[in-house]
């Protein structure tokens, strides 16, 4: 029950509040742009991997197993949005060996030449174990710079014990938000603007000014009913009962359902399907260690360990996951949505101009 859950509880989600805290602290200390990576890079000895990632996105057991198997120590840093990660890399931060941006950001980083090409001779497990359909994606058609880490969906989750309705669409989500004023959302313009666009029957990636104006109108109407905008602890708020519904990611939804009565929904109108990739930034100090990590986690047993922790879809061949800790999740429709669900989802493909329009909407939404 919510009463037993406290703020101290370990939040299980892809984009944990440690990240927001770290980013805020570093920025507060004036280190936001260069400090973190440089400071740590300076202290970096051979045999250390600096893994800059979403918080709670790696099974803690995997770190230990990796260090035991390879002798490489792992230094961790966390971010809570693709944009924060990109701001660091664009600001000239060096020393991050491994990062996990979402597809659209991987694409941007490739086009800006901020990534190192992978050495596939060091990635035997990927070649052997990853489902071929995940080897070539539209974000990186030749698979030069990236390996799929996880994939998932953006939808909404709600407390089945607090809300008697059983919403299945964005329209109902919006209506219930207005009814209860107990909704949280991730602090991320692509997801929120895109989801509302699909509700209105437009593309998740619409750049049409008129369509976006309508999206803005819906959002401004919703604003007074929003509890908080946190990519970090939005699911913790729902677990604690401070919010009853949330717009966010499937893995968080399933983790939430493991703690309190809750349900994650891919809205009937559609929404986002996303893929996160392993990338090695151009400023990496130890690319070999990054390769070692990627190769290590694509052993079926380790991949299963990861999926059983993050609740996000693994790109491994399904057959290899049987008998791993993730085996029982293979039939779970939240972790591995059926093909019919996936078909109506879109990946984030917003252009630079579309992004600017969305950011302005986002600013108005947050400022209103």
């Amino acid at each position, binding site marked *: 029950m919510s009463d037993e859950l406290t703020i101290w509880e370990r939040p299980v989600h892809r984009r944990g509040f440690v990240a927001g805290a770290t980013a805020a602290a570093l920025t507060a200390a004036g280190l936001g742009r260069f400090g973190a990576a440089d400071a740590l890079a300076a202290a970096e000895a051979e045999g250390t991997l600096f893994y800059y990632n979403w918080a709670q996105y790696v099974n803690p057991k995997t770190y230990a197993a990796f260090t035991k198997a390879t002798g490489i120590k792992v230094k961790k840093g966390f971010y809570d949005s693709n*944009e924060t990660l*990109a701001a660091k890399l664009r600001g000239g931060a060096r020393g991050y060996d491994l990062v996990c941006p979402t597809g659209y950001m991987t694409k*941007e980083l490739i086009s*800006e030449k901020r990534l190192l090409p992978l050495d596939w001779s060091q990635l035997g497990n990927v070649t052997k174990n990853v489902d071929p359909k995940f080897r070539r994606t539209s974000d990186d058609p030749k698979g030069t710079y990236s390996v799929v880490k996880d994939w998932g969906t953006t939808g909404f989750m709600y407390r089945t014990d607090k809300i008697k309705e059983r919403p299945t669409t964005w329209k109902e989500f919006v209506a219930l938000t207005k009814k209860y004023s107990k909704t949280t959302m991730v602090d991320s313009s692509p997801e929120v603007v895109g989801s509302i666009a699909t509700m209105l029957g437009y593309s998740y990636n619409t750049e049409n000014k008129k369509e976006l104006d309508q999206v803005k109108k819906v959002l401004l109407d919703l604003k007074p009913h929003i509890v908080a905008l946190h990519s970090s602890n939005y699911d913790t708020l729902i677990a604690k009962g401070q919010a009853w519904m949330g717009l966010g990611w499937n893995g968080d939804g399933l983790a939430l359902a493991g703690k309190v009565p809750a349900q994650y929904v891919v809205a009937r109108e559609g929404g986002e399907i996303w893929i996160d990739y392993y990338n090695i930034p151009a400023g990496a100090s130890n690319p070999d260690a990054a390769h070692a990590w990627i190769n290590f986690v694509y052993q079926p047993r380790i991949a299963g360990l990861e999926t059983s922790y993050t609740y996000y879809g693994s790109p491994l061949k399904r057959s290899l996951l049987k008998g791993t800790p993730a085996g029982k999740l293979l039939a779970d429709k939240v972790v591995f949505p059926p093909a019919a669900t996936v078909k109506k989802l879109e990946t984030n493909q917003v252009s*630079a101009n579309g992004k600017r329009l969305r950011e302005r909407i*986002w600013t108005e939404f*947050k*400022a209103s």
Partner: protein
Amino acid sequence: MRPRFRGLRATGIRETADSRLAHDNRGARAGAGGPRYPGWLVLPAVAWHVLFFLVPLGFIVATSFGTVVGFSDIAYTWSLDNYRYLWDDVVGELHIYRDIFFATFKLSIIGTLSTLVIGFPLAYYIARYAKHKTLLLLLVIVPFWTSFLIRAYAWLIVLDPEFPLFRALGLSDFVERQGILFSEKAIYIGVAYNYLPLMVLPLYAALERMDWSLVDAAQDLGDSPLRAFRRVTLPLALPGILAGSLLVFIPLTGEYIIPVILGGNKTFYAGSLIAQQFLESGDWPLGSAIAMVVIGALTIVLLVYARALGKQEQFG
């Protein structure tokens, strides 16, 4: 440090001492009397200032006239577009940015006033009556040893209706109804708490130097305690009030951690707006332009402050 004098005669002596000090200062400036220091001693300070203040400021100015190309590249086009965008907003119908600037100003003013109202009696008590001054001052400073961030997060626990103390007292429902967490109220509580030491310390410094016999004298000569406070204590404490207000007001104009953590990240202030442009939107030019507007507004406030201080010194 400073000798304490008793009575009116002693005050006279104090004035003499002060004027001698002032004389010495004049001498030093004129190059006669007092120790002389070689001019190059200022070089480290100047270098530091140029390197870490003027150069970065130059970058911000240059960036604010730039434009974004593609997703994030900055072209230094020397265009006024960002400022025009802000200006159009300020005079326009929607005026989102104008509202944000006003909200920031309001936050800074209320934050300053609330820390002053809470901090003044505390500083007054420590300076005038407290036996264990060092201990009390230490207690004011100790929270600073904890990260600002953690202190803000701590309030998430305290303001939570499910906070064990509220539950034990049966107050959970009451607190829930107040809707404090993730509201402006929570932001103001967080601000008052986090900025209080910045106000108390300069106030204490000013009050501690005060010669309380002046208050006694005023009352001996017929002033009521309130009048003595207004005519003697307050003017003498004014430098501390101004210094403390400045220390609280200026960082508050850039505050964004507390609104993010305690306000639920749904109320924008200038600080969060700038952070948003840099970290999320990738629009450094617009972020820089907003920063320049804030710097400009602050400069005006500082000029007013300098005038107030100048006047104060004439009388003080």
